């Protein structure tokens, strides 16, 4: 069975969805990603969905769920490269993904991840002092 690869880059995880998602694949990804965050102690997750041309309500909710789970596991999630058609579909389905950071492409997404992480490090240092 095919899986969506999860790449580790330093303290970040990179997930690029290059195929059209079907339900089983989405469930598998949810499982794999949560495990990977836990195992690697990842601080940030970047999900690239630029190749995802269409979503249905299930996949839409899956994307929202995965982002939510990553956040609970204390990893910042950035969703990058959403296509216009996908964005419109999600909005029409009422899935506005509150609390999920978004960026136009992987490069900007990475920058955003580093930024938010640097800010939260500052907060942590402040509390220690």
């Amino acid at each position: 069975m095919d899986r969506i690869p999860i790449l580790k880059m330093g303290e970040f995880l990179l997930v690029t969805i290059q195929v059209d998602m079907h339900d089983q694949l989405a469930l598998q990804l949810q499982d794999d990603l949560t495990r990977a965050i836990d195992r690697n102690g990842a601080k940030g997750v970047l999900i690239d969905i630029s190749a995802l041309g269409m979503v249905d309500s299930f996949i839409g909710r899956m994307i929202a769920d995965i982002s939510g789970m990553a956040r609970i596991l204390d990893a910042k999630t950035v969703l990058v490269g959403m296509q216009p058609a996908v964005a419109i579909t999600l909005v029409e389905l009422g899935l506005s993904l509150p609390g999920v950071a978004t960026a136009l492409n992987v490069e900007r997404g990475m920058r955003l991840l580093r930024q938010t992480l640097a800010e939260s490090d500052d907060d942590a240092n402040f509390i220690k002092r």
Partner: protein
Amino acid sequence: MTSNGTLVSALQTRRQEILATWLAQLEHISASSKGRLSSKDLGRQADDFLTILASAAQAHGTDDAGAEGWQSVREFLEDLSRQRVLAGFSSDETATFIFSLKRPIFDALGKVCSDDAENLAEQLWAATELLDKLGLHTVKTFQASREEVIGRQQTELLELSTPVVKLWDGILALPMIGTLDSARTQIVMESLLQKIVETESQIAIIDITGVPTVDTLVAQHLLKTVTAIRLMGADCIISGVRPQIAQTIVHLGVDLLGVTTKANLADALALALKRNGISFVKH
């Protein structure tokens, strides 16, 4: 077919007489349509129409104006309606063209069968039925042509109303003009999102200076667009909120929290530039 022989022959033998009376009537009626159609054109149209009407009546009888043989008459009327739509005639003015032919034909029939009352009644009925059918067909085509014009204008409006403008590197603006309905918002949203992808712009400014009123539906459309832009990874600023509209939005209880709003496009551009780390120095 044979029973209406009198009508057919009257159309041919008394053609000049019918044409003259008809033209006099048309002139009288169309006094209001001055300038849109010259009396020379009108005369030519009437002449042509009588010619094909007579030939169709002779060849195919006057019983059924919907039949195959009457195709040429119908086509003539369709052309005529179309021309009149473009010239700005009203539907009743167009229909009168046909209905005003009744009087001359009745007169001619009266003279032909002056001594045969039964036949006259029958012929009059046949003529009325025929002209009514042709008149209705004219009105129908007139309306269809007009709807065609309206449809074309609507699509043109849709195309006109969605210009996405690049204000700066990474900053797009969308000046919205006119009332926002679902269909328009959908097109606006799609073209804006597409442009964001193409230009990799981080900030989109939606300017609603040209939107006359904002109701809950329009506000909802705006919110949807803003959310979609955010999902794509860009930011959205709404500008051009007039005092009246600000009041309406608050009274409607629409939640615009989390959406950056500015009073005018200049302020929005200044904010967008600032967010992109661009600043100006005056020398």
